[in-house]
């Protein structure tokens, strides 16, 4: 019986607070359906590692070592699944959408400045800024490569805000656009993209990004490998496995593994709140950047662009595209923006990886 009492007596308020945080994550995952695939394992993991003398902590720590710390295996493998899920056709039919993906990375660089201003070390500031990539695997990859001491807070912020895209983005979009702009209709030509183009696309992207940002080549390479499996047409079974089984399997491990960084000592810090705030700023500036670029482009193009599609460049795929499409329908029930916003959304996916790679290239050395 003494053993039981001893264990109970080692429990402290910080651990209980982490149980509460874990409970909130589980609640958000189940009741609000906010990124449940990740928030639920993270929430449960947070409780698991904060039990007094938790025997699970060592196992989860081991998962972290092999799955994330050594060569960022989990996020990279997850990228194969994501690549297999993405259809780049809307982007290939209208390549100028690429620019919106770039503009929606403003948040990353703005947040880098803000985090530096708040006194974070450069590796931490850059890792926090990557929350603006709105891309979980990229955030994990960069934060881990830069040895950030705030990996868990960054993960929680990244995935929480990705889940909150339908709440965060609409007011910003409405604030930056007029009703008339939101009503702009865009024609979708629906040009056929040849199979050869779809096959060459992932190979070319990998080669270009690999040459410019070699640190990001693992990320873009695995993403494009997944896409090549999808588009080649002879590996349907592998493509389906990557999209469903592989992605689900890694997601289960990824969520609970991130929880290894959610011990009370590591998570309950004032900086965590600051990181959550900076993450929100990153998402807001991303949205603003994308919308503003569209408005600027409208000054020069004859065929007007609905500025709302710029907001879909934040790579939170496909939530952001859906949000823009829905906002378009709210203003005009015959205005279908989905194909355009999906095109921007997938370009954001590429742009966020490039931005992550550049941050690593500039700062990892």
């Amino acid at each position: 019986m003494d053993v039981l009492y001893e264990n109970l007596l080692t429990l402290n308020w910080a651990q209980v607070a982490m149980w509460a945080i874990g409970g909130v994550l589980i609640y958000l995952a189940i009741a609000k359906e906010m990124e449940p695939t990740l928030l639920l394992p993270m929430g449960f993991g947070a409780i698991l590692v904060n039990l007094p003398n938790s025997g699970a902590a060592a196992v989860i720590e081991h998962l972290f070592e092999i799955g994330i710390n050594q060569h960022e295996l989990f996020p990279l493998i997850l990228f194969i699944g994501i690549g297999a899920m993405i259809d780049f056709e809307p982007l290939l039919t209208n390549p100028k959408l690429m620019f919106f993906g770039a503009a929606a990375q403003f948040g990353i660089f703005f947040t880098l400045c803000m985090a530096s201003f708040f006194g974070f070390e450069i590796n931490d500031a850059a890792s926090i800024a990557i929350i603006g990539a709105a891309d979980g695997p990229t955030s994990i990859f960069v934060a881990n490569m830069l040895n950030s001491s705030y990996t868990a807070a960054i993960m929680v912020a990244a995935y929480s805000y990705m889940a909150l895209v339908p709440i965060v983005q609409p007011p910003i979009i409405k604030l930056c656009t007029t009703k008339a702009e939101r009503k702009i209709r865009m024609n979708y030509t629906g040009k056929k993209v040849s199979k050869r183009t779809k096959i060459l696309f992932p190979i070319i992207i990998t080669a270009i990004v690999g040459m410019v940002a070699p640190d990001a080549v693992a990320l873009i390479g695995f993403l494009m490998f997944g896409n090549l499996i999808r588009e080649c047409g002879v590996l349907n079974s592998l493509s389906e496995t990557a999209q469903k089984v592989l992605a689900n399997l890694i997601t289960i491990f990824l969520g609970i593994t991130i929880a290894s960084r959610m011990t009370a000592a590591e998570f309950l810090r004032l900086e965590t709140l600051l990181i959550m705030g900076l993450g929100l700023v990153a998402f807001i500036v991303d949205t603003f950047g994308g919308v503003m670029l569209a408005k600027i482009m409208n000054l020069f193009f004859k065929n007007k662009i609905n500025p709302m599609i710029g907001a879909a460049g934040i790579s939170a795929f496909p939530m952001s595209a859906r949000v823009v499409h829905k906002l378009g329908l709210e203003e005009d029930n015959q205005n279908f923006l989905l194909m355009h916003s999906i095109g921007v959304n997938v370009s954001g996916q590429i742009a966020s990886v490039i931005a992550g790679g550049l941050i690593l290239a500039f700062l990892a050395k």
Partner: protein
Amino acid sequence: MEEFTIVDALLTSVIGIATVMVILAIIAVLIIVVSKVIRAFENKTAKSEAVIGDTPAEVKPAGVPMPEGMNEGEVELIGTDEKTAAVIMALVSHNSGIPLNRLSFKSIKLLDDEKKGADK
């Protein structure tokens, strides 16, 4: 970790966003170029195949209906996707009152005028 000032962060940010823009611009240009090259190559191949397909050996006896519900043969699609072609064939069949298994389509081609219009 070496000292990193707010000025350094600003400089990194400006260079970073500019580089992302330039890389994506390069990718966009490459997509356009590669798509055009592939389209030209495929159109050329399709035309040469069409010439071969016009030889008497390939011609099937006209007017012989396939059994009900069965269709055979290939339609040459130029600047048209399969979905659009299927819709066109269904429309022709519906409007003419001739069942699809009695109709023979050689090719469905997007007219040049429409093509230019679509590219704008």
